[in-house]
């Protein structure tokens, strides 16, 4: 009995257990301090749904052997363009969302393919190259946002009439469309059903994919390239496919993120967006060489709940706003921790 309990704990991992206990403690403090617990939980659910797909994007990249996708901003830019196209043509409702996702997906696949070609040339340093690739594309796109031929007056600078604004409000009918879909309130907690459903479906599809022959080939290519070659698997192709999947998921994840947030943030806003996603999957128990859907789900839930709940609670205990600082410390600290520990450790 004790042994099997130990085994379960071992599998769950100490970091996750610590965070879990910390979360429980936070909730207790929140209740004692009369914070609106139900609202905090509701917000957590929204943030889980918003970020989930982008965290899931880490899984194919790691599985195919390309490491954690620090180049996620490439996908994120594709997602932003998807949103902008829909807003430019004033498309609304689910049609708008579908077209945004479609454009994001197509651009994500194209960009992911090119990015995959690059990654195949820099084997062993994918994560560092990815970080710089992400930074470069975000900076490069700053020029694009200024020069892009968007005409919708709600999107471009008022003065000068050219170039996109820093922050664009997503139209009312598109904003929060998934959050509201089948939404209901339970014990005062607002549940964003549509948002969570999309995340769940994405996880399910990813899970099934890794059980198909193609998915298994990708897993083998990532786990041991020499073994893969001896099974007749084209390792380069698998790595490109993994990167394409990751980038496309990042793009669609960004569309989902934007509709929930209600804003599209351009210019340097996506610069650091890969890091919370990387941190989340690592908190979920993944390493730079192993990650599965469960890691992504668990990591998203823990990381986002922690961010949502910890900040108001700490604010109620100590004066001052430390939200951004805490977020940076937790996410970068987690990345550092995960990348320095020995391979294969839980």
């Amino acid at each position, binding site marked *: 009995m004790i042994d099997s309990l130990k085994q379960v704990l071992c599998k769950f991992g100490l970091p996750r257990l610590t965070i879990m206990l910390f979360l429980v403690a936070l909730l207790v403090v929140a209740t004692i301090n009369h914070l609106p617990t139900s609202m905090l939980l509701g917000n957590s659910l929204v943030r889980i749904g918003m970020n989930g797909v982008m965290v899931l994007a880490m899984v194919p990249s790691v599985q195919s052997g390309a490491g954690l996708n620090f180049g996620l901003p490439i996908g994120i830019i594709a997602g932003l363009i998807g949103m902008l196209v829909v807003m430019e043509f004033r498309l609304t409702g689910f049609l708008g969302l579908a077209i945004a996702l479609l454009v994001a997906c197509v651009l994500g696949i194209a960009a992911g393919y090119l990015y995959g070609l690059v990654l195949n040339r820099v084997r062993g340093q994918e994560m560092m190259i990815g970080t710089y690739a992400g930074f470069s594309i975000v900076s490069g796109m700053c020029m694009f946002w200024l020069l892009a031929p968007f005409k919708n007056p709600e999107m471009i600078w008022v003065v000068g009439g050219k170039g996109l604004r820093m922050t664009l409000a997503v139209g009312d009918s598109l904003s929060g469309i998934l959050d509201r879909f089948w939404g209901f309130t339970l014990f005062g907690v607002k549940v964003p059903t549509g948002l969570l459903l999309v995340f769940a479906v994405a996880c399910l599809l990813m899970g099934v994919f890794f059980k*198909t022959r193609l998915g298994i*080939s990708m897993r083998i290519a990532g786990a041991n390239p020499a073994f893969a070659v001896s*099974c007749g698997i084209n390792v380069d192709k698998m790595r490109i496919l993994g990167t394409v999947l990751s980038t496309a998921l990042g793009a669609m994840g960004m569309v989902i993120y934007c509709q929930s947030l209600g804003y599209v943030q351009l210019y340097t806003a996506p610069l650091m967006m890969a890091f919370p996603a990387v941190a989340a999957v690592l908190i979920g128990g993944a390493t730079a060489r192993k990650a599965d859907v469960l890691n992504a789900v668990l990591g998203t839930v823990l990381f986002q709940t922690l961010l949502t709940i910890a900040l108001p609670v700490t604010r109620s205990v100590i004066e001052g706003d430390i939200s951004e600082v805490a977020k940076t410390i937790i996410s970068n600290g987690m990345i550092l921790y995960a990348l320095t520990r020995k391979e*294969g450790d839980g």
Partner: protein
Amino acid sequence: MDDNWVLQVKDVSKAYGDNPVLNKVNLSLKRGEIHALVGENGAGKSTLMNILFGMPVIHETGGFTGEVWLKGRKSEIKSPKDAMDAGIGMVHQEFMLLPGFSVAENVKLNREPTKPNWFSKVAGPKFETINLHKMGYDTRQALDRIEIGVDEWLPLMGMPVGHRQFIEIAREIDKTDLSLIVLDEPTAVLTETESSRLLSALNKLAGSGIGVLFISHRLDEVFEIADTITVLRDGEVICTVPKHEARVENIAEMMVGRKISNSKATQPGRTTGNGNILEIRNLSVDMPGEYVNGVDLNVRKGEILGIGGLAGHGKLGIANGLMGLCHSAGTVMCDSQEIPLNDSRAALDAGLVFLSEDRRGVGLLLDESIEDNIALASVVSRNKFVKKVGPLPISVEDGKSIREHAREMISLLDIKCTGPQQSVRRLSGGNQQKVCVAKAITMEPEVLLVSEPTRGIDVGAKERVLSVIKRLNAEKGITVVMTSSELAELRSMCDRIAIMYNGKIHGILSPDAPDAEFGFCMAGGGGVPGD
């Protein structure tokens, strides 16, 4: 009298855990003598070198027993530094040189001649200026001693391997009180002309009174330069003979012969199917250290064909080349259909399955479970263990049948594990090999290519692995091509044994042929025409 001995190794034994690698080894080396140490892979040569050079791996694993005497005095070599101070120079198999530095800087690394300056007088000798003139001069001297004309100030980067080998030797002989130089397979990466230059350089070195301990398994070289030859096998010294008393074929026989002579297990007069399942023509394989250079070989349907030969002569290259794991050229027909080379998919589709000699590198997914290791290769390349998802046009892996199959294999091969979900990294070498065999069986081979199936595994696992291979051949008619360094193993398993020499098939022998004939063949003598 005693002063004449540069090195005396007395009764040295060493075990890694329960696994003895050296057993009461004795070896003596005179001033100016070239002593060759020969033996197959795993004979214990490298361990002996590590002991002589005080490598940390020896002391981390419990040290050794026995004594090492240098220049007539018993010495304790605890670290490579002790060894260097005692006048032992070591030329490693992997070069220990810095590519960004010039030749002279490499030769003089950490021993740079210096002269004091005003700052060093205050701050200490570490801040003395390097005497570039003397550094260049000393290096030139060392390079001239081994007759290599390379400019001492050229950077090492981009130099051919041959030159690097010479520079490594120059570094050792530049040390002032060098009395013994140890070379671990120095010619393995050299071309023929470079090798002969190296050998003549070694002769000169010995002439100047330095003892040379030369490790190699290229017998032709050994016979060219050595004064004395010591044969090491399974951690024991089989014999030490002066060269003029030794014959190539005897030495080769002693290197490979095993004390245990397995009973002949192939039935006499066993009929193997007629017709060739594999026809290999002019196959060349670019496998580092195991080049295959124009092999013609027919494999008959249903037979067990052995491929033997000394290490470095290309026996491992054949299977790796056939499977598309190493770049290869030539033509290969399987069942009268040509298989495109360098395409592992095509080889698998033709029914070839490979049990790699590199178990941990190629054969296994170390962090995955036993069941996944057994089944996944078949899911991918044979479309086995898959089921449809409802009415959808997608098929996914069938966890249940994978689990069942894994259990069957675990009991068939007697894999010692906690269950099919255990990760293979923690299994012992023998059990890992059994997982590899299970994987290969699962892929339903027509031709099974087996490389070094028993390397590094215990006796019980050896028996089991070999008997399963034999049963597959007998019951399912699977053709087996087995490559092994262990002659006894080949003789107990195979119907015919092809011996590789210098990247070519040198002869095809019957497993009953006398040891001497195998030795002769491996050493490149005579040869019996194949087929």
